[in-house]
């Protein structure tokens, strides 16, 4: 299989996988709450329905923002699948998030504005963790590209165990799960209504939801990298942290943005730095 | 079901205990005194008794209710006690709005738009004003 077909396959399969993951999330959450929950395909129904709603947006930029969010996330996934530079990947995906934020900023609506402000802080919280993870990978392969990583014959997890924790944290933040759901959540029961998503509606929102399908696959793809040697082990690892996030969501309350930034920087970046330091020391000893 | 331990319909009206009559000019002093003795402000009640408004100021000490009773002819201005008891602002606005009793100097004055909306009824609690039923 050449890389183009891998890419095409990924672009087609990822949203299905992502939608199913969200379906599992909603179903599992419901079961944890002693409910039956929606059908597994519910996220797809939601997106389809949103696509079929009457177009409504507050300005053209919102549509552009949503489309850029989608496209960059797809690009990010493609770059991961095609073994590209991980750091560039992060910034490309970051472009999408920034666009989403700007889309929310572009409407003079207090909830959207406050949501966007907090989304910026969320980025501040998780972005370093992802970069550190990529650096951790570099320290093993002397390359930032995924393809070089795949040539490695030992799973990264053995030397980067703490990154499993930081990745779980990133996943929680990205999925807006308690206690990290400061800027918007799937259910609107929070002080900012739906935060950044408040002013997006109809097909524009559908694009964002679709982008989130890709996004969850992308982030879990990062988790998979921690154990790439056995494909199902990596998948289990990814699924495990996904389930951990869902469980955590159900046993914690939402906390505040100031807590999030401090927590992510002290614990998240702390763990990452500790793991990196271990690696650096290890490398120095070998030399 | 049994027959009630009956009272005759001509029984004398029941009276509220612990009511002290006050005059308009001593009102603020009495309320200030209540504040000083750490009474809890409960609420106010306004009654439209024809030519007069009757105002009850209800206070509580612990679980005991005490009332100041003020009778004043319609049209008389009443000073707000929200300067002393901030908590009174809500009920004072309400009375001002629903009865048209001119209460002056409310700490947070809604200018007659606390509960009622433009285009709706005005001073609906007055007796002489029959309530028109609104139909859509």
């Amino acid at each position, binding site marked *: 299989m050449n890389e183009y077909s891998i890419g095409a396959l990924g672009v087609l399969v990822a949203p299905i996988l992502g939608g199913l993951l969200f379906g599992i999330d*909603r179903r599992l959450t*419901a079961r944890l*709450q*002693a*409910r*039956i*929950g*929606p*059908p597994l395909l*519910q996220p*797809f*129904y*939601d*997106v*389809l*329905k949103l*696509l*079929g*709603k*009457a*177009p*409504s947006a507050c300005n053209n930029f919102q549509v552009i923002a949503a489309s850029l969010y989608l496209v960059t996330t797809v690009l990010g996934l493609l770059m991961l699948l095609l073994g590209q530079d991980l750091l560039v990947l992060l910034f490309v995906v970051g472009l999408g998030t920034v666009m989403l934020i700007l889309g929310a900023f572009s409407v003079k609506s207090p909830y959207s504005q406050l949501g966007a402000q907090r989304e910026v802080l969320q980025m501040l919280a998780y972005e370093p963790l992802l970069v550190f993870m990529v650096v951790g990978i570099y320290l093993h392969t002397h390359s930032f590209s995924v393809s070089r990583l795949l040539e490695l014959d030992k799973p990264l997890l053995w030397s980067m165990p703490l990154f499993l924790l930081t990745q779980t944290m990133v996943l929680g933040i990205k999925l807006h799960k308690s206690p990290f759901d400061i800027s918007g959540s*799937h*259910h*609107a*029961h929070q002080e900012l*209504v*739906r935060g950044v*998503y*408040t*002013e*997006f*509606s*109809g097909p524009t*929102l559908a694009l964002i939801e679709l982008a989130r399908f890709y996004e969850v696959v992308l982030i879990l793809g990062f988790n998979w990298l921690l154990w790439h040697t056995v494909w199902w082990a990596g998948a289990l690892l990814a699924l495990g942290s996904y389930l951990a996030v869902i469980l955590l969501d159900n046993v914690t309350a939402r906390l505040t943005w100031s807590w999030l930034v401090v927590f992510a920087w002290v614990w998240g970046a702390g763990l990452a730095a500790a793991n990196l330091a271990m690696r650096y020391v290890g490398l120095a000893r070998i030399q | 079901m049994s027959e009630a331990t009956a009272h005759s319909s001509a029984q004398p009206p029941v009276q509220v205990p612990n009511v002290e009559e006050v005059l308009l000019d001593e009102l603020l002093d009495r309320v200030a005194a209540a504040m000083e003795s750490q009474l809890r402000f409960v609420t106010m009640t306004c009654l439209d008794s024809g030519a007069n408004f009757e105002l009850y100021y209800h206070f509580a000490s612990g679980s005991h209710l005490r009332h100041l009773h003020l009778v004043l002819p319609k049209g008389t201005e009443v000073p707000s006690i929200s300067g002393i008891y901030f908590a009174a602002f809500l009920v004072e606005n309400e009375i001002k709005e629903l009865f048209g009793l001119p209460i002056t100097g409310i700490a947070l004055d809604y200018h007659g738009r606390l*509960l*009622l*909306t*433009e*285009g*709706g*009824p005005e001073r*609906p609690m007055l007796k002489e004003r029959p*309530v028109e*039923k*609104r*139909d*859509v």
Partner: protein
Amino acid sequence: MGLLDRARARSPWILHFDAGACNGCDIEVLACLTPVYDVERFGMVNMGNPKHADVLLVTGTCNLRNARVLRNLYEQMPDPKAVVAIGACALSGGVFHECYNILGGVEGIIPVDVWVPGCAPKPEAIIEGAVMAVQRMQERRRKLREGAGSPNE
């Protein structure tokens, strides 16, 4: 279009607005979300944001002030949308007919698709009402499509 219609039927997002109810119907609406009734089985999620909602659940007798809000919210919901009036107050004003500050029900302020009688209606009735609202939405689209002869909007 069949797929889209199915998706629509399975994903009605809900906006609930209390237009001056006694809370009785509101807590029953909320109770629909809870494990015992669990409307999420039908894809219903309480969105709390008109811009994301498909079905508006209204409880309570309106007054001038909340009628304005109700109209605003209805206005902000993107098409297609439906309205369910819940409880005697939203239907007609109910026991509050002698009150001076009521408009007597939701009808006349925004178009209502489904009426759920009761004081307060049981959660089962509310769920049924919401499901019927979705049907109504579908029917309206079908009629529109047949009438206009265009398969797309």
